[in-house]
């Protein structure tokens, strides 16, 4: 049964159909004027620009860091400096990118409630799920544009050091977006229930951290298996449920593997589309929760 679920080709086709249906529904139902307005509004936010500038500083700072290292120890010709630039930059993109995704997802709806713009919008013939969808899509455009910008800067930094077109970087950035999509969707769900941006921001950070730690639940499950204690067994069962339900953001660590592709690596042809589907499905769950909370909200 388990292996049937893991590798059945028909299930893959079914997933493909579901994902295409989700994309088509989003494209059809999204009020693009709201999405674009959210995007334009997001670009004006000083916090986001701040994060972007910081990320640029880190990306180009990484070059100085490795340059100093080279000056003092450059007796052996290696690719250590390029590897360090890649690691530092992808980490900077991950940290600042996720902060941008969290801050923007946490603030779009509460800000509109606070400055009362939402009342004007909802008085128009726009359904609540559409309004929320527009906002969500707008957030995603901001996240994607920021990510793209950081990716371009990263490519330039890398190109200066190693004049080869960093093709694998595109895949890494692409995967990073789907990691952000999950964090952004669940942060958005908390924001839909909130009237201020503080709580969703904290929740977003919490989601990102726990999302990266879910694999440690596996060791709880393993330890409970060898224990005879019923409490341990119960905890093990709970850990198993959480392990299998909560999104695991560590799966997206494939992005760092792609960046420093080794000759003995497996082809990534299957893994990347599977992660894309994974991101989209959890984002859908996040969005439905957001709508569930938002539809009965008194405004």
């Amino acid at each position, binding site marked *: 049964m388990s292996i049937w679920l893991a590798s059945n080709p028909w299930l893959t086709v079914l997933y493909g159909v579901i994902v295409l249906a989700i994309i088509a529904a989003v494209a059809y139902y999204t009020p693009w004027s709201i999405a674009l307005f959210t995007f334009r509004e997001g670009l004006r936010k000083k916090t986001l620009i701040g994060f972007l500038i910081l990320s640029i500083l880190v990306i180009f700072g990484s070059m100085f860091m490795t340059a100093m290292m080279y000056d003092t120890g450059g007796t052996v010709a290696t690719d250590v400096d390029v590897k360090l630039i890649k690691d530092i930059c992808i980490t900077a993109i991950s940290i600042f990118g996720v902060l941008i995704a969290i801050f923007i997802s946490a603030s779009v709806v509460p800000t509109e409630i606070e400055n009362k713009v939402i009342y004007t919008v909802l008085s128009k013939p726009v359904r609540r799920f559409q309004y929320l969808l527009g906002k969500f899509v707008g957030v995603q455009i901001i996240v994607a544009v920021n990510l793209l910008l950081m990716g371009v800067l990263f490519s330039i930094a890398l190109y200066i050091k190693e004049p080869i077109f960093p093709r694998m970087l595109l895949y890494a950035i692409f995967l990073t977006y789907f990691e952000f999509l999950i964090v952004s969707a669940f942060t958005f769900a908390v924001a839909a229930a909130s009237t201020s941006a503080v709580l969703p921001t904290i929740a977003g950070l919490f989601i990102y951290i726990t999302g990266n730690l879910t694999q440690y639940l596996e060791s709880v499950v393993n330890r409970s298996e060898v224990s005879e204690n019923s409490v341990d067994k119960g905890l093990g069962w709970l850990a198993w449920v959480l392990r299998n339900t909560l999104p695991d953001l560590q799966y997206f660590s494939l992005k760092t593997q792609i960046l420093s592709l080794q000759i003995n690596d*497996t082809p990534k042809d299957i893994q990347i589309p599977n992660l894309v589907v994974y991101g989209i499905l959890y984002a859908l769950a996040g969005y439905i929760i957001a709508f569930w909370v938002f539809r009965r909200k008194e405004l």
Partner: protein
Amino acid sequence: MKRFPNLVLAVLVALALALGALQGYRVRNLREADAFYRWLVTASTQLRVFGTITPELEGEEAEKFMDRDLFDRVVAKADQALPDTPVMEGDTDDATGAPYPKLVRYTRTLSTGSLTETEESGTVAVAANPEQVKKDAEVWRFARSASLAPERADFVRFRRDKRLATAGTQIGVADIYKNQEAPVSIGQMFLGFRKLAAGLIWIQVDEAFHKGEMQRMVPLMRTTVLLDPNFVDAYLIGAWHLAYNLTVQMSDTPGYLKEYVPEFGAWVGNKERAYYAAVNFLKDGIRNNPRDYRLYFDLGYAVYAEKLNDHMNAVTYLSEATKQRHESWVRRMLYHSLQATGQFEEARAGWEDYLRANPGHAVAQRMIPTNTALTKERDAEALGTQAKKLLTQAGQARADGQEAQAADMERQAQELQKQRDALQAEARTIYTDLNATTADGDEFAQARLWRMQALELHEQGRTLEALALLRQARMEVARFFQEASDLIIQMCIEADLPLNVSERKRLLEIERIKEAWAANPVEIAGRRFDFDTSQDAWRQAGYANQETIALTPAAKDLAALRKDRPVIDQFIGLGDNVVFELDGQWYEFRRKSLLGNT
């Protein structure tokens, strides 16, 4: 939706989460298959290179490791599942002569395209072989197939329980806490930034190096590769630090104080311990990155050949380096090591290939005649030894009154001597030509000429002239120093001539080593070895002049035996002459070729 909106939404959320969870399961399965695929490549490579994938351990430790059991199960399934593939050159096990299992043949890196050097860099990376790419895709499909699900599950379980020796260092949360030396906080492991943490720790290694804090570097280096097992440069530079920088200020341990470590198959002092730490570090790198030629190259050339002067192992690893995608100079170092082990024909054939790919290559042009001359020199010395033996036998026959037989033997000996002289003359001509055609003279050819001349003089009884020549020669050609010194000592002893202070010191040291060896028998794998001072040889207990099979570093039999029974490395590391028994057969290993250290 309108009647039970909450219910519908709850069902939708549950459905989306369930689909996500199921997809998560699929992704997890793929990640496990990914790790499994890497292990298959590693285990197959190790089987090919080392001849075994299970460490030679005794008792409980041996039972703990499941590598062989699991690998055999996968191999059996691969024979059914993978499409047939022809057995190509290099696909046969030297030990048994049988082709490797299909899985091993599939995961083997295929020899690739051109070896031509580019003018700008002098090196060129050989492109990936398209056939290899196809085979890798096939193995990847096999690794994640449903038929292999039980083996994959076992792999995950064994790896978690650290029961796979071939899997290289694997990190777990507990490891960080257990490793008291590791200056890394658990926080650095979080949020998927392990590789960055590895990079930042590596910067500390660099800092420690420049501050001269060598001892601090070792735990930092280990932590780095623990966090990022694919950080190949960390393995390479780390091994370089261990083998070169850590040992640079250490003094040599006198031979008689060295301890025999069967695990290394060598007598070790402080420096050697660091060299073997580098060997182990690089081997761990190979387990994690089995297809990176740089790891094999550094292990073979930088450590085994350059530091340990162990060209036998150097050939093993450099050969493997040439089977991966590699740069052209890797082959050159392999041919040099082949020459050093006395495999002159193989070295010459390699240089000829190289010259065909790089017409006019200066080194290849020199090394082809050099190896031809060495082959002739070796054959000449063999003929000389044979002739001497015949003359001794003839003397005996004459004493026994068998005049006709003695005369026949003498005639045969003379014939052999003629052949020897002809070969020596040919070798001399080659060396003279080499010396004349190279602008500043060919150091190696000159040293060989001096050596031949000195031996001739010694044979004619003109030992003093021979000694004078050798003493001058060893000063002029640095790489000839050891060989010339050994010859000087040998000639002086034979002619009963006095030695100078440094030669006496050297002789004294050798005697002290022999005394220490004679006083301390060595136990290896349940066998006792004693040093026989009269024969200068290590003998396994129970040897009573039984018939032996002769083994030399250049012998193909030895390479095959070492693959089949890696424990042999622990025996032959004892000295230059070792007699041992294996499966009822006695072997005599002689390290020194007739030409000494070339």
